[in-house]
């Protein structure tokens, strides 16, 4: 049977249609995308602009919508479904037993016994577990040694390398802010990385005005991200309560005001900002904080009335 011209056309059209139909949904189905490389160091002015034109919120919302994200997960494997990571069933059972054991010495022995013959993913996970255990027992140097080992593995996803930086911040409190900035950049979907970063910034005493500027903007980014990750207003409320112990920090005041804003208490936020602006005494970060407070007051004044109704 001779091939007709119309047959060829029909085949081409059918191929084109099927190709389009298939590729379109597949392209939208893909799993979580690897995080973007860390942003360039933001300035406070630019961050406030991004806050006011909603681009900061849009980026935060993207992160919060990542498939399979369970933001409060303590490890990357709890936060995301990472199918590359696997562990054989018998080793998995032993690892589960290590988690169930209560005595730290027994836990450690169980975990160390699993290191022999472990694949690199397994070994990475075991070192993270050992680092956590060391932190629980207050042995920071042991935690750092385990984290050094965890850092030595290649092909570990960024969201997991975030865990190393996060635990490093706890094991080396003197570099907490810098390590938490790395942890947050590698996985902005981690509630703990954002929350601990916010707390660390509030507790940190900057040495230069540039540092004030940079950390204040990082604080704003962290808070916007958390407001998208939070399941309930009370999640932010707990954070507010934990920073209230630092009444003298301008950053704490900004954080508290922004939490009020993000939980719909616009009137209270406005009063809080104004009060803080008046009370703000002369200290190193006063310029940066005042700049941010004034910006928030102006932003709240621009808000349409409908948005400010129903506040408490």
């Amino acid at each position, binding site marked *: 049977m001779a091939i*007709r011209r*119309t*047959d060829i*056309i*029909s*085949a081409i*059209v*059918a191929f084109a*249609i*099927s190709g389009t*139909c*298939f590729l379109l*949904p*597949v392209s939208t*189905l893909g799993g979580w995308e690897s995080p973007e490389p860390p942003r360039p160091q933001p300035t406070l002015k630019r961050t406030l602009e991004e806050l006011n034109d909603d681009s900061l919120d849009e980026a935060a919302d993207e992160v919060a919508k990542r498939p*399979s994200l*369970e933001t*409060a*997960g*303590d*490890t990357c*494997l*709890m936060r995301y*479904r990472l*199918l590359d*990571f696997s*562990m054989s*069933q018998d080793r*998995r*059972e*032993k690892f*589960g*037993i290590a*988690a*169930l*054991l*209560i*005595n*730290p010495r*027994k836990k450690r022995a*169980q975990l160390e016994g699993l290191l022999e013959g472990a694949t690199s993913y*397994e070994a990475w*996970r075991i070192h993270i*577990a050992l680092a*956590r255990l060391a*932190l*629980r*027992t*207050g042995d920071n140097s042991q935690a750092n040694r385990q984290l050094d080992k965890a850092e030595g593995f290649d092909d570990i996803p960024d969201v997991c390398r975030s865990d190393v930086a996060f*635990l490093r*911040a*706890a094991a080396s409190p003197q570099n907490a802010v810098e390590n938490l900035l790395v942890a947050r950049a590698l996985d902005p979907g981690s*509630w*703990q990385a954002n929350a*601990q970063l916010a707390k660390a910034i509030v507790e940190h005493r900057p040495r230069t005005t540039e540092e004030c500027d940079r950390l204040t903007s990082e604080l704003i980014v962290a808070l916007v991200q958390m407001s998208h990750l939070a*399941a309930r207003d009370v*999640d932010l409320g*707990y954070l507010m*309560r*934990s920073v209230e112990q630092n009444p003298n920090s301008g950053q704490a005041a900004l954080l508290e005001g922004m939490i009020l804003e993000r939980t719909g208490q616009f009137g209270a936020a406005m009063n809080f900002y104004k009060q803080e602006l008046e009370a703000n005494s002369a200290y190193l970060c006063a310029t940066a904080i005042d700049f941010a407070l004034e910006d928030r007051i102006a932003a709240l004044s621009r808000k349409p009335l409908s948005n400010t109704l129903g506040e408490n």
Partner: protein
Amino acid sequence: MITGADTEVTDAETGFLDVAANALAVIILVTMVVLIISGVPQVRGEVTEETELDLSFPPPLETVTTPLAAYYAVTPEGVTKLDLDAMTSQVNDGVAIPETDQGNLAVRVSRSAYRDFNEYSAEFRLNLENISKTATPVDTREQRSEFVEMISNRFDNQGIVPTFLIQRGSAADYAPLYWGLRKADAVLRWAVLNPNGEIRIRHHVGSFSTRERRWQ
């Protein structure tokens, strides 16, 4: 000639019919495939049954890592420290249902777990009759304050947080101790045991779906 022209027209019609039919078939096929693939709901976190006891710590305990734990059973006779590790360790030796004087344990690590490797489900069935034989009484004020001091010291020095498992019906015996601990600002968690002395402890992704983390 007329016949030839007719045939040409019929060819063209057939060709377009082919196009339409093929395209329709492909669209149906692709739609089915897409429906099957995307039909799996993208749930944020997993829906899990809540059958285990709620062992959440009070929210102010906002630590980077979880504190170390200690378990105590509360019976009308008093408080007994539990050695759950004595049961857990036996699983390594291949004992299916490890048992000690204090009770037995059934532990399961699901094959279908697809999050972290440390997911488990453990069911301790406490032998409360045996346990009550070794109980430390906390009836008098002195006995209670001594116990509270020990608990506070263990938290201050080693970061160990106690979990009290209350025998059903012993709440009245536990109440004075509880308020003693609360007065001393001790961090603790407690739960009432099932009537048969069972407690189920799980570590899984559901433990992280709220910030009230539960842990071992």
